[in-house]
């Protein structure tokens, strides 16, 4: 009990009010995705022509689509593919990007130069374009899209990791570890990487949001997730429904995409130590301003020398 309370307090101080709200929303989405078969009121692929374009009712809380599939159930199951894709993209990018970034920051010199320039080069390629190209070569599907985006996202993550790791690299404690007889691997992974975890996690959360958006775009174009698998991106692309005036079909998944990306961005920014902008902060009595300033001057752990 005490432990949960402590954890809650810690999350509260790190995330702030907006961050907690965003985090709560993400938790709900995640739980819905994981427990989809339990929480979804109906089979997402069960069509029933009698219910075609049924409005919200007791039987279908959000109504049903053109072939009578329950919209809410499709949204809940859609969360699975919609979250799995970006998770894979971010995971693979981190797996490839972090070692490269650590290598560059540790050795510096020409090693750093080559790796950093390669990052710049990949960064210059639009991720979506790369994905479209891959799909053109290997055919549509989630796998080629994820592979292409993973590569495109490496610089987005690794550049931040490299910068943060470089800052740690020149800290005296790194020299001290070296003269204690520790090797490169030990120092970079167990000390440097550990100390920049907030930066990495924050950036990963933001990348997750972008990847979700990119995959949804690709699915919208029919290049990634294929019908009838439920996916938010695919659902947004249901132009039939829109033309026939059933805007909820398109709006609901669209709103979910926007909210999820927004929530990820907020949580990511809070974790990496960014303070909420002024208009999100509660108005406080004048005396609190001093305390506030002291708080702002605090450097996040990841940036500490």
């Amino acid at each position: 009990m005490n432990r949960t309370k402590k954890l809650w307090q810690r999350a509260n101080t790190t995330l702030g009010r907006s961050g907690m709200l965003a985090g709560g929303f993400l938790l709900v989405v995640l739980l819905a995705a994981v427990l989809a078969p339990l929480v979804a009121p109906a089979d997402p692929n069960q069509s029933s022509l009698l219910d075609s374009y049924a409005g919200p009712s007791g039987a279908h809380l959000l109504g049903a689509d053109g072939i009578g599939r329950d919209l809410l159930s499709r949204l809940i199951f859609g969360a699975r593919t919609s979250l799995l894709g970006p998770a894979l993209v971010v995971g693979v990018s981190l797996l490839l990007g972090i070692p490269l970034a650590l290598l560059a920051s540790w050795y510096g010199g020409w090693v750093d130069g080559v790796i950093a320039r390669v990052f710049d080069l990949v960064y210059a390629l639009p991720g979506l374009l790369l994905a479209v190209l891959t799909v053109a070569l290997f055919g549509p599907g989630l796998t080629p899209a994820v592979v292409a985006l993973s590569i495109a996202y490496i610089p987005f993550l690794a550049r931040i990791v490299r910068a943060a790791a470089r800052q740690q690299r020149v800290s005296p404690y790194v020299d001290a570890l070296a003269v204690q007889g520790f090797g490169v691997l030990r120092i970079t992974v167990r000390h440097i990487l550990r100390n920049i975890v907030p930066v990495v996690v924050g950036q990963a959360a933001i990348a997750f949001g972008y990847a979700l958006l990119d995959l949804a775009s690709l699915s919208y174009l029919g290049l990634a997730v294929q019908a009838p698998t439920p996916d938010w991106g695919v659902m947004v692309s249901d132009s039939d429904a829109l033309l026939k005036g059933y805007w909820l079909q398109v709006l609901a998944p669209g709103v979910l995409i926007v909210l999820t990306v927004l929530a990820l961005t907020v949580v990511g920014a809070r974790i990496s130590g960014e303070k909420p902008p002024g208009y999100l902060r509660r108005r406080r009595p004048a005396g609190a301003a001093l305390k506030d300033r002291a708080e702002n001057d605090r450097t996040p752990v990841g940036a500490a020398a």
Partner: protein
Amino acid sequence: MTAPLLELAGLTVDITTEDGGTRTLLDGIDLSLAPGEALGLVGESGSGKSMTMRAVTRLLPRGAAVSGAVRYDGAEVLAMDAGALRRYRDREVGLVFQDPRAHVNPTRRIGAFLIEALVRNRGVGKREALARAAAVLAEVGIDDPQRRLRQYPHEVSGGMLQRVMIASVLLAEPRLILADEPTTALDVTIQREVVGILDRLRRERGMGMVFITHDLDLALAVCGRVAVMYAGRIVELRSADTLHERAAHPYTLGLLGSRPSIDERAQRLTAIPGRPVSAFESGPGCAFAPRCGFATAQCETTPPALAEFDDGLVRCSRVEEIHAARTEATA
């Protein structure tokens, strides 16, 4: 004489600057340290004390070119491969840094910091390592070691953290300690304590120590021999017993003269005029000549050699004359 534990021969460090020029930071350092001996390295900022220590552990900045020899127990440190270097750093030398706060990973507990080397490099069990760490903390005069092990570096004072640093060095049981201004960041009372601990443990365990400081008196108190450095060179190397009374180099005399004295009241302290120069800033002659009260035209052009004088070595071409004049004055 026994074989030296550490021997520096003609150690020279040049560094290439960003504009492509070369700057000499250390210029032909010759030193030797017997097992169990304590040697003081004294000088102003930029005189090359820390650079000497960094060269001994091969912890040099990028672009530094080292020549000469650093021999530890007969092995050439500068030629060691990565594995040998790690063993040497892990087992043979221990470094005590000037600012413990900056040299400890701030996000890890003191216990984790202390046992990491034992567990990773020596294969000591975690429980056993923690017990040893607690024992050593008690030895450096820290109360309630069990509690300290669980604290983070920011939770303890600077003096305490420096003792933790010393404890971490002792845990590795090295034969050589390099202490780089270990007390400069501490206030005077804590300074005395820390130096006392370092000195006592060094004697008890028979470790060799190079004690780097800008405080000549402190060096004289803990070391058997003292080397005075100026502008990347050694200018005087003497036994601590005789340096006080019979200092010969004008720079050492200046350092001794600039201390406050207990006996004489309210006198203005004598300062050495000018500011210290680095090795690369000095002209062709004696680096100290521009600030030296005894300098002649010849001093400006001809560099003096480190020559035997009295019971040590002195780098000054006029040492005989200065000495004669001083003895006459006091007689």
